[in-house]
């Protein structure tokens, strides 16, 4: 018998055999097993993040610098030419990354703080609190989002913060629903009951008992919601009520240069120009979705 323990002892009971690893080691193991689509997504996001963060150093010209000739062709001093009032397209693309991604990120964070917090409260308190919050959310969700946002923006005017707050509030409804649904499953656990029996306050129960256990689906949702917010902002900018000039952003860049497409038979490269910001939007959305897919697959416990 290879087993020296002949009788029972509490420390010798068979638990899950596991080696201690730091967070970094575990992340690295996961990363090595990630599918190519997720790797692609991560690389794309990293590149975008790099350009967004270091826009001031990477971009050759300022985003509002219109000191050049209008509609200059590709090549030479202007890699991707200039637009209708002589601003460097390449520089504006880079600054657009900073502005659009930055605003979308802030908006998503606010919508998660708001929707997630209220969702948790609704799940813990139940009863009237839950009922009132859920019905308010139902009302907000009943109105088509883009149209509602358009209306609000035309009432309050489109300042950057106005844009952020309006989209964050509208988007927080979906976050609320998810947060409420996943925490409902956690709230009924005995450890939450144990915390209540101990006399813990609402804040502790939310932060320490429930939040860590709903984090994986919430993180996945964060990626997804970010994509949608990003698309909404681009759409609003395209319609002219989003991010206002001279701030560069991809939605309005598509609108401003859209007419160039008509001249494709004279200048093919020029005609591609309005498609570049559109492509940038599409690529980031796809990349984020790849990563979210992988993450959801990991956390939902599905095995192939």
């Amino acid at each position, binding site marked *: *018998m290879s087993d020296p323990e002949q009788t029972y002892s*509490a420390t010798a009971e068979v638990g899950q055999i596991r080696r201690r690893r730091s967070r970094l080691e575990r992340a690295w193991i996961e990363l090595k097993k990630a599918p190519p689509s997720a790797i692609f997504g991560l690389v794309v996001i990293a590149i975008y993040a790099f350009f967004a963060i270091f826009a001031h150093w990477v971009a050759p010209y300022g985003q509002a610098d219109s000191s050049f000739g209008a509609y200059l062709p590709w090549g030479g001093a202007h890699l991707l030419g200039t637009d209708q009032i002589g601003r460097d397209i390449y520089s504006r693309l880079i600054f657009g990354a900073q502005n659009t991604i930055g605003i979308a990120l802030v908006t998503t964070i606010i919508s998660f703080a708001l929707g997630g917090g209220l969702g948790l409260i609704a799940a813990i308190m139940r009863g009237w609190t839950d009922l009132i919050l859920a019905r308010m959310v139902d009302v907000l969700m009943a109105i088509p989002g883009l149209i509602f946002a358009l209306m609000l923006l035309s009432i309050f005017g489109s300042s950057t913060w106005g844009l952020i707050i309006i989209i964050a509030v509208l988007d927080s409804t979906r976050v609320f629903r998810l947060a409420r649904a996943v925490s409902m499953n956690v709230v009924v656990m005995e450890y939450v009951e144990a915390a209540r029996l*101990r*006399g813990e306050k609402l804040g502790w129960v939310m932060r320490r008992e429930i939040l860590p256990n709903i984090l994986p689906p919430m993180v996945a949702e964060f990626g997804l919601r970010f994509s949608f917010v990003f698309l909404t902002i681009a759409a609003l900018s395209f319609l002219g009520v989003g991010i206002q000039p001279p701030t560069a952003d991809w939605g309005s860049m598509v609108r401003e240069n859209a007419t160039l497409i008509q001249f494709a038979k004279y200048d093919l490269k020029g005609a591609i120009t309005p498609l570049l910001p559109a492509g940038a939007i599409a690529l980031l959305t796809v990349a984020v979705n790849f990563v979210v897919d992988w993450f959801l697959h990991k956390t939902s416990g599905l095995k192939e």
Partner: protein
Amino acid sequence: MSAANGTGAGAGKGAGKNGGDVLLRMTDVVIDGFSDERWHEIIKGVNLTLRRGEVLGLIGESGAGKSTLGLGAMGFVRPGCRLTSGEIMFDGMELRQMPEREKQKLWGTRMAYVAQSAAAAFNPAHRLIDQTIEASLRKGDLSPKEAEARAIDLYRAMQLPDPAEIGYRYPHQVSGGQLQRAMTAMAMAAHPDLIVFDEPTTALDVTTQVEVLASMREAVEQFNTAAIYITHDLAVVAQMADRIKVLRYGEEMEEAETRKMLKAPEHPYTKSLWSVRSIAKEPETNEDYILQIEGVDAAYGKGLKILHDVNIAVPRGRTVAIVGESGSGKSTTARVITGLLPPSAGRVLFNGTPLPAALKQRRKEQLQKIQMIYQMADTAMNPRHSVAEIIGRPLEFYLGLRGRAKEARVLELLQMIELDESFMDRLPSELSGGQKQRICIARAVAAEPELIICDEVTSALDQIVQEGILKLLLKLQQDLGVSYIFITHDIATVQAISDEIVVMLQGRVVEQGLKTEIMHPPYPEYTELLLSSVPEMDPDWLSNLLAARTGTGDL
């Protein structure tokens, strides 16, 4: 009924069954499991032989590899496991090398599996009978009509009420015990050669367990089926098995015929398993009551009244066990005491002063004095908190300990529950069942309570682990002088730990008194049923009991 078969299958347990030919022979079977990025051996080269008509009991503590071996006998491994080496010969076929599609033809038709949780094993969207006959239809030797007729016969053999009709119900329309028997019927439907029972009665009440055991044993004998019976309950295995194999850490410790194994176990580990029910406590009482429940009625929502005029008194420093089957209001009583469910009438006195009915009105000191330990340690601890955080929180919250002082006290508590400092930064998922429950005990003790409510704290654990936990609780009571309310349906636990017993039935207290009084005749009718249903470590216990109950001497 044993005469129905006539070929010696009903000849009685442990006697003369070696004449059947070998159905299953496992040689040096090794099964690996993948976890933590590596392959680990779960089963380390086990041999197993099973003859037709024979029942083999597999016992061992959790993590011993019982279920893995039981499934392995069918050539099946759970996802994340693999059959590494060895030979599994089932009726002349080698299962380890057999392609998955071939094995699938055997599963359900020639081998069947009865899981611990029948509720999880039935598809809620289909009628019982459709699921029962599925395998027979797949086997293809019966028409649907014939298969249904056979299923109804099996329901009758399983002593299900109204056998002709019950199959047309959905799983949620029958009780847990009935579902477990329906599942056995489902396993038997295609007349398989081998059935693997994986803890089929663990989730049941003792009173229900007796019925299920009896009908399983009878069905196995009637059809001369070979069976592997996996359990951690020694008394149950003594009723069911012809031979017993003891597993530990994936290795065989000992195998012998049931009677021999019970009488003269050889291996020290087996001996320690057998000595489990050795705790005995002299009951004492006390006129100084720490908790008094007076005339409590309680209801969920508006209509459903659960408790009717419940009166219970808990003497200081003593243990009161509340017993009764599920649905008798035991746990609801606990919820009233803790304030989770304010009573609709009556009051709860703690140290002579009434406690506020609702949790929110209670002060921190009042909450501190009453702590609770749950049945499922798994769900009672936050999976994202480390052991140090779990035990440390009440220290910080009630006693204001921080930093070094807190850490020192956590360590002290860990030692008190017979664990060491290597457990400090583990997560609950890295602990065994017994260790988890110990951590829960430490968390309760950390608050320095006067009363601890233990809600079925040992019923999810193996017997040997149970004994460890009960001993620990007794020791803590001696050292700290806490009082316990012990909610359980396990009479053996009650015997071991209690001073006084409260018997509950359908939300009412049937009787309360000293253990010695309650456990001695004359009993009220219900107490009698409850007490007589507890399996004993005597292989003839079930037969004798059934004989006594039917009053005829033969089934």
